[in-house]
């Protein structure tokens, strides 16, 4: 009992620290449901009198938030699936196929993942204009598929490098070709890692800012992050609007977090400490 009592200050300190982390979310949520009059009268720290949703509704319509959500979902979903496919193909050749020079190939993918987007952004902007892909969601999907696949290739290659050889040999004896082995054996067995990659690619792409900011200039193509970031950067919003924007930006992130919390933490463990 006495040792437990000695632990309580640590618990309290950690709870206070954790509270500090979530307080910004809480005040945003509280203020997003206040009317402008209430906000200007009582300031940001008071509790709301009631739930006033007109601010959120106005903002939703003004920025056409449904469209932005759709764009983000489309881009992130497509990138997640395509980047996983590309990573699987690469990693199959490197991890299972053990192609010649695989160390160099792997180093190439790792370097591609480390390159700052700043060193790619202008040529990508220029080339996509030349190719007629500028300001299309497809351009962003292509670019992020490749960037995310760099990380996926790296991670999956190391997982597949430890794939039990006996299973593959057995399948070969049964007459399976490489293509069948990949889709019928390697992919199903690697499903946990692939699931982690899907979640990570989706969320990373959802959160990307620089390239979508440059590539998606028209309102109809912008993602949630870009639309909100640009509005904020232009300083066009009053306090109520800012809160509506912040809450609508935070909500999808919290939904993903609740949906994927297990995958996220497991995924980090897969990546860092195997």
């Amino acid at each position, binding site marked *: 009992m006495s*040792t437990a009592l000695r*632990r309580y200050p640590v*618990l309290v300190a950690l709870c206070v*620290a*954790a509270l500090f*982390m*979530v307080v*910004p*979310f809480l005040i*945003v949520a509280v203020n997003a449901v206040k009317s402008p009059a209430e906000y200007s009268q009582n*300031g*940001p*720290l008071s509790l709301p009198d009631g739930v006033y949703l007109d601010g959120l509704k106005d903002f939703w319509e003004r920025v056409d938030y449904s469209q932005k959500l759709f764009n983000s979902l489309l881009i992130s979903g497509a990138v997640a699936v395509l980047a996983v496919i590309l990573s699987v193909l690469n990693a199959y*050749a490197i991890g299972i*196929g*053990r*192609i*010649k020079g*695989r160390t160099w190939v792997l180093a190439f993918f*790792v*370097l*591609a993942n480390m*390159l*700052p987007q*700043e*060193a*790619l*952004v202008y*040529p*990508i*902007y220029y*080339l996509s204009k030349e190719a007629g892909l500028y300001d299309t969601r497809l351009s962003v999907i292509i670019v992020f*598929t*490749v*960037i995310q*696949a*760099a990380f996926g290739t*790296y*991670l999956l290659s*190391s997982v597949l490098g430890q794939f039990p050889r006996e299973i593959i040999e057995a399948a070969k004896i049964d007459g399976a070709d490489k293509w069948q082995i990949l889709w019928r054996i390697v992919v199903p067995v690697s499903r946990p890692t692939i699931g982690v990659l899907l979640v990570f690619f989706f*969320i990373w792409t959802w959160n990307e*800012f*620089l390239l979508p900011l440059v590539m998606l200039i028209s309102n109809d193509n912008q993602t*949630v*992050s870009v639309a*909100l*970031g640009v509005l*904020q*950067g232009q300083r066009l919003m009053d*306090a109520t609007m800012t809160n509506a924007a*912040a809450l609508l*930006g935070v909500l999808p*992130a*919290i939904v993903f977090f609740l949906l994927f*919390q297990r995958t996220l*933490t497991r995924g*980090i463990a897969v990546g*860092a*400490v*195997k």
Partner: protein
Amino acid sequence: MTVTVEKRVTSEETHAGHPRRPRDSYALFLLPGVLAFLTVIVVPFLMNTGVSFTDWQGVGSPSWTGLANYRELMDDSEFWESFRHSLFMVLAMAAVPTAVGLVLAAALFDYIGKHFGSRIVAVLRACFYLPQVLPIAVAGIVWSWILAPTDGSLNELLKAVGLSSWRQDWLGDPDIALYSVMGVMVWVQLGFPLVIFMAGLQRVDPQLHEAAELDGAGWWRRFWHITLPQIRPEIYVVLTWCTIAALKVFGAVYVLTKGGPGGATNVPSYFSFTTFFEKTQVGYGAAISTVLTVIILALSLIGLKLQTRAGTA
């Protein structure tokens, strides 16, 4: 993220001795990946490097100017200033989160996990990790409103607790803005090291701690002599990863301050962005981003080296 790769390479080498495996036919599977990488990463990267030796404006044909852009960079105080701010960002996004994350992870693991159960640990860990799933642009909106000068929550809070004299124009005062951005970045970044370290701690043999505890070692001594050395690979991973992220920080600066006031929070990434797209000095912008790339790649290699050494030790 890279702890295991070198080990794997060596274990592969032992397999490579097997004769007559027709392994090269697998190369076909690499074809789509290699083509995609050439188009989206290699070609643009080479173009960017090439353009950095020209005075290209984004239209017309570029004319070769050799190292002129780099020479100009050497004398450009705005450029050096932006790199100086990068060091502050490394402090805020790598050094502080790693140090604080270590202590928090160890406290959660040793104290809370053992005495209050894993449910509380999971809830607390989730709270710390939450900012990590937020788009940085949204985090920027949240904080620029909290730090607003007139009716920002932080200033209102200071007034409410009787510290009115502490109120500041957090993002608008050139003397404070950089520290405000740093504070926001610590908040954003903390969850990443915490979660990685907690995963790493599960690897540490609990008997080491029990033996040390029996020998009368206190919590800090066990932390220092057992926990830290055991999760050294994770520490290198986190430091490398976060340092690179800090050098690339863009969205937060764009949304919070736009590099201002008066360049007080400008960083190389934002500097190259404005040089490309606002000043349309593409050649000069390419030179900035090339320097940034060289620094990041050098740091990545150092980080990889340290990790593999820690991983095999």
